[in-house]
């Protein structure tokens, strides 16, 4: 292939205890969007960071065209025309758009001072080339929307005149309309001959944007294929590495009686609009939707973090009026949050104190607590959930993501929770731990606990749920039973198209 602009051969990158990349070959052609896909921990971000010069690999070679290169820093890579748009923005909120684009390499006038006029002119030109001239280059970036900030990031990357651009999960924080406009811009970049590496795990996006796709798993390359030659299930099997039905194992189960119901439930900020859902005893109900569709907001509303703006919430037949976490937890509801490090755990506290964070009051209704009894209780849960920790006094920050998640689970199980809200329960944990979490969810359901699961990973929602609600723009736009709709149909509903196939 003569238009190959970047090749990697046998790239190996190790972190203490983990082989993040194991002899990975990869190539990128000019004018293509090459998707890098894999589960969390598969090595997709690591590979892109090696290409960007952010990580120095232990082994292997990188070629730009025919020339062998070795980058010592991202600056080296930038100078050779490789620019990145990161998932977390690198903009400084108090600087304006132009200042951000030309940060640390501001044009100077003849007195050696910053030439603001030229800087703003150039920034404007760059934004125009992205059809984003509506963005005011003099505005501090903190006033911009997430999508606009991303455009500024892209403009910043373009200001280096790159031949290769790396997008790391660019749609993670965008609404669907913004995603569409991002895709239009990526297509335009592609037409101008730039080679694009697109890191993502959102299956529903690949067909819209990708040309080729490379699947990584546990640091190894599984395959590189043309996008129109594979279907979703094949991709999932490649990513997960085993038959999907084994990963998402569900036992036979009967649902008895309703435990949670919402009637036209809305929040006060208009992000959740007149939502009607029900959850039965022993049922796993999935809520699918893009980021920004209002799923997390719905969970926060039910759990009492945000106040109810309208409609009704019933838990076990009882209407909950002034919702607050303290009240909701008393009704037996628990929530496993999206961001366990920020909202799930006190990271510098021990496994022990985190496990009893909710249940302490129920174990010790009188004033004093008994250390000895706490140790007994916690040791029991650590064994039950097989939390890998040397002892229960270990701070949670020293645990792996999967084990942290188990501590969060232990926290709720010890509080006798029978309705669990899972918000992205397997984000950032490896496949083995994921399967344990799935098995746990299945077991909980068979024990008669009810689960409301929010997830961006469609295979997970489809694989685990007895029933699925599809959310879009704050509303429930579809509902289906297990196996009723295909991934494509659900994906279309999530994106807000094809509403007629909805079964509700």
């Amino acid at each position, binding site marked *: 292939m003569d238009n190959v602009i970047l090749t990697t051969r046998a790239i190996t990158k190790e*972190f*203490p*205890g*983990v082989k*993040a990349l194991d002899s990975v070959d990869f190539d990128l052609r000019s004018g293509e969007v090459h998707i890098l896909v894999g589960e*969390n*921990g*598969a*090595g*997709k*971000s*690591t590979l892109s960071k090696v290409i960007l010069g952010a990580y120095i690999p232990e082994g292997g070679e990188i070629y730009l065209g025919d020339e062998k290169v070795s980058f010592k820093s991202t600056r080296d890579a930038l100078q050779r025309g490789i620019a990145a748009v990161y998932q977390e923005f690198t903009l400084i909120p108090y600087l304006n758009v132009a200042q951000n684009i030309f940060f640390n390499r501001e044009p100077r006038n003849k007195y050696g001072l910053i030439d603001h006029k030229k800087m703003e002119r150039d920034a404007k030109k760059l934004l125009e080339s992205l059809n984003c001239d509506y963005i005011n280059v003099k505005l501090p970036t903190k006033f911009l929307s997430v999508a606009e900030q991303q455009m500024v990031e892209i403009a910043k990357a373009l200001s280096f005149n790159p031949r290769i651009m790396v997008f790391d999960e660019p749609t993670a924080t965008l609404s669907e309309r913004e995603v569409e406009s991002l895709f239009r811009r990526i297509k335009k970049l592609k037409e101008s001959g730039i080679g694009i590496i697109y890191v993502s795990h959102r299956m529903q996006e690949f067909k819209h944007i990708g040309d080729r796709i490379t699947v990584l798993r546990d640091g190894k390359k599984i395959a590189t294929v043309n996008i129109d030659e594979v279907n979703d299930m094949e991709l999932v099997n490649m990513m997960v590495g085993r038959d999907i039905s084994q990963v998402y194992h569900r036992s036979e189960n009967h649902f008895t009686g309703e435990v949670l119901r919402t009637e036209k439930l809305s929040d006060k900020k208009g992000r959740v609009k007149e939502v009607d859902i029900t959850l039965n005893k022993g049922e796993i109900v999935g809520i699918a939707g893009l980021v920004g569709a209002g799923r997390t907001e719905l969970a926060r509303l039910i*759990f009492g*973090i945000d106040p109810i703006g309208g409609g009704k919430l019933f838990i076990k037949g009882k209407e909950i009026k002034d919702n607050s*976490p*303290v009240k*909701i*937890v*008393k009704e037996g509801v628990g*929530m496993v*949050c999206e961001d366990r490090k*920020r*909202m*799930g*755990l*006190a*990271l*510098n*506290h021990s496994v022990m*104190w985190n496990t*009893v*964070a*909710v249940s*302490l*009051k129920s174990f*010790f209704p009188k*004033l*004093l*607590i008994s*250390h000895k009894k706490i140790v007994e209780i916690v040791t029991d849960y650590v064994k039950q959930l097989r939390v890998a920790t040397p002892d229960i006094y270990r701070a949670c*920050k*020293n645990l*792996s993501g999967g084990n942290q998640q188990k501590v969060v689970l232990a*926290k709720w199980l010890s509080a006798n929770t029978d309705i669990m809200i899972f918000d992205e329960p397997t984000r950032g944990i490896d496949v083995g731990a994921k399967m344990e979490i799935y098995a746990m969810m299945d077991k909980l359901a068979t024990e008669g606990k009810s689960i409301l699961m929010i997830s961006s990973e469609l295979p997970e929602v489809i694989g685990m749920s007895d029933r699925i609600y599809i959310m879009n723009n704050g509303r429930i736009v579809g509902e289906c039973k297990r196996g009723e709709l295909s991934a494509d149909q659900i994906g279309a509903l999530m994106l807000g198209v094809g509403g007629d196939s909805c079964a509700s």
Partner: protein
Amino acid sequence: MKKYMETLRRSQSFYSYIGLALVFIIASVIVKEFLTFDNIITVLRQGSILLILSTGLTAVILTGNMDLSVGASSGLVGCICAQLLRAGLPIPLVFLIGLLAGALVGVFNGFLVGIVKLPSFVATYGTNWVVAGLSIIIMHGDIIYGLPKGFTWFGTGYVGPIPFIIIFALVIVIIAYILLQKTTLGRDIYAYGSNKDAALFSAVPIKKTLFSAFIMSGLTAAIAGMLMTARLNAADATMGDTYGLQTVAAVVVGGTSMLGGEGGITGTVIGAMLLTIIVNVMNLLGISSFAQPMVVGFVIVVMVLFDSYSRRKQNTVVRRKQPQTN
């Protein structure tokens, strides 16, 4: 034993223990009067007010907040009590009103920080001025002295050979220790300080927790203020002022993190004692009182330096352990 040593080494107050041990040993060697019964009693008596103030402040700092009003609050309560005693109110009632006044200051701080959501540093500094101003108004710029014997006994009386004030401080320390370590409220305070969001999602009543911490601080300030007045047999609007930041220093030197969630009463006892011993030793050595503040300042800086160094070291170890995959 090995396990015990490890717990000790890992505890946030590790450097405070070492600091206290070092100062204690050095003091015993270079000043022969230091390790006498009389002097140890003197040290404990001098340190007891600071100790009481610091225990309540520890609760606030554990939540990741600050209370800069403790010095002024203790002054205010002292002044209120002195005025009431002069007016002839019975001593138990005066004690009760004093405690109530301290609790009210705590509620006010809790309101500013928890409901109005001001940064505690600024809010409690404001309270500090309000409270100091109130004291001046109450005292009309006067100093009151000559309080009833029944009252001054709490500051000057003895139980056997031991001054009552030391026993009182000890009791407060034990109560605070139990509250923070052995009750759900204590765990909530730690959880709040370590990660407020996680506490909210764990159904910790976060407002109640914050108010409780500030009220604890207000109560200990009130007790300290009353004991101070009893001991001096006098009250003056500015008498608590010097304690304000000294209290903060005692807590922080004791290894309680200003970010919240780490530390505790044991460390605070050490911190308060350490600061008191240093002043005591300098007095015994006849070091000029002009030079003393400088030495105390250095000790505080060095202790906090050790503490933050040890924390940084711990954190780097952790970072190396976690591979950065994706």
